[in-house]
């Protein structure tokens, strides 16, 4: 060190360089991860094919094999009336998605503020926590009779059943998120002259955000859980209804079509939430250096 003045930071000490999109794609294609994943899926399909179509296992002979399901799914004129080309298929998807959207909306709108308040104010937490911990372990299906008795109409009880577990997951993860915030951030905020609303909006909320989004991902998952069960019991549309209806009507390939659709939708919603979370929390994705 020859100069006394502190030198300005060299720009290279800061890793701002995210690899360009094309490079990322190439890296992804050349890593074994993608191929291992594909191999896993192919093995699953192979197992399914072998046990149902090639050498059916004792009780598997009634199950539709992958080829049968695929032909049905892609047929313009499907035997059982549900395929990629029938409006009914999309109607079921839309009904289920719409219900999930409403359940998820209410779970977020009620769960996040409640969780934040519980984490922020000891008193709110002391009131609410025992109640939530008491209700949370009750399985969604146990609520079915009460939901039907309490809530009028056909739609609302179904949405309520999907909402309930999503609400608990959101609330508790948000609470956990607030509790995870280092005490020093609160001290720093007070030291810098924050009023309570600043602490809430600028420390509690952003500090809990990573946990909130984990909670929302879990929430959408458990909402699908309960939704499908609820749709099997009551409802005239929706993927859960479709599965049960196809079982009753002995239209087995449709069951599998609906199941795979659920898998794909669930994955899609999870990715969507992660994407929104990533956009809101660039500080977690950029801070890897």
């Amino acid at each position, binding site marked *: 060190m020859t100069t006394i003045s502190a030198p300005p930071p060299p720009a290279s000490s800061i890793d701002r360089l995210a690899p360009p999109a094309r490079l990322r794609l190439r890296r992804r294609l050349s890593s074994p991860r993608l191929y291992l994943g594909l191999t896993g899926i192919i093995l699953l399909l192979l197992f399914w094919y072998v046990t149902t179509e090639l050498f059916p296992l004792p009780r598997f002979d009634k199950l539709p094999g992958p080829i049968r399901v695929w032909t049905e799914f892609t047929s313009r004129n499907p035997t059982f009336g549900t395929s990629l080309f029938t409006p009914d298929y999309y109607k079921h998807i839309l009904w289920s998605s719409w219900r999930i959207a409403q359940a998820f909306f209410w779970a977020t709108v009620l769960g996040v503020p409640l969780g934040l308040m519980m984490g922020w104010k000891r008193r709110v937490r002391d009131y609410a926590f025992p109640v939530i911990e008491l209700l949370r372990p009750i399985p969604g299906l146990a609520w079915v009779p009460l939901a039907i008795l309490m809530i009028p109409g056909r739609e609302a009880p179904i949405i309520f059943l999907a909402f309930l577990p999503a609400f608990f997951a959101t609330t508790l993860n948000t609470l956990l998120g607030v509790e995870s915030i280092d005490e020093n*951030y609160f001290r720093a905020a007070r030291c810098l002259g924050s009023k309570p609303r600043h602490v809430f909006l600028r420390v509690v909320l952003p500090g809990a955000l990573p946990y909130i989004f984990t909670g929302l991902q879990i929430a959408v998952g458990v909402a699908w859980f309960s939704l499908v069960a609820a749709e099997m019991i009551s409802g005239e549309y929706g993927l859960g209804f479709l599965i049960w209806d196809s079982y009753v009507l002995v239209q087995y390939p449709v069951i599998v079509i609906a199941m795979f659709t659920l898998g794909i939708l669930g994955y899609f919603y999870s990715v969507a939430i992660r994407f929104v979370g990533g956009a809101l929390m*660039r500080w977690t994705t950029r801070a890897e250096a």
Partner: protein
Amino acid sequence: MDAIARGAISIRNVSKVYDPDGVNLLAVDNCSLEIASGEFCVIVGPSGCGKTTLLNAIAGFHDISAGEIDLDGHVLCRPGRAPEPGADRMVVFQNGALFPWYNVLDNVTYGPEVQGRPRKEARDAALALLAELGLADIARNYPGELSSGMRRRVEIARALINDPTVLLLDEPFRAMDALTKGVVHEFLLQALDRVNKTVFFITHDLEEALFLGSKVVIMTTRPARVKMVIDVDFPRPRTFRVRSSQHYLELKQKVFEAVHEEAAKAFAAGERELA
């Protein structure tokens, strides 16, 4: 300084008793210390001796059990009085407390904004300060993207923009390698050169204490009391060359002996507690 000089801290007969699970723990015992306006006061002492307790009391994070702490004649702390942090006393924390969800610029504007300054004005002031301190390049970076030395500089900037009268630093450069420390020390001294602040600085590093401080206060092992006050009269601006002067070595010897004595006591006390 002169009549308008601010930032004189008066710590008079302060005691602090912690009461976890009914076991009284005397952290600070009848501690008195006068810090003049604009003084760079460094506190050294064995680990867990109650230095941070004192700092937290000045910052307004917790109350005290006895005595009084004044700032420019106003009472900051007194038993039975709810502690209150204020923008006149800025803390730089031991483990760093930049908000990871805000970039450097938003961290620096945080104070002025919550204190009610218009957003535009706060941003301009922050950008000017960052430029002055050589941090303009990283204004849009998040703390997680910066080295620990860089984060410390930003945190000092975040404190200074509020124009506090007192700067409280709790072992801010600990766990930093010697080279980084050297650079950050010079950064801190330069930043303070332009503005006259009273500094309350806690450290374990005796070299750091002598290089930075105008006064080094050695605390006893718990409960904390003032053991010795040493005036460090090297001229400012100081450079790292100070460290090779004869006078520096003499002072260092003196401080080291005093601290070592207390550390040995603390160690023996620890042995006794374990036995």
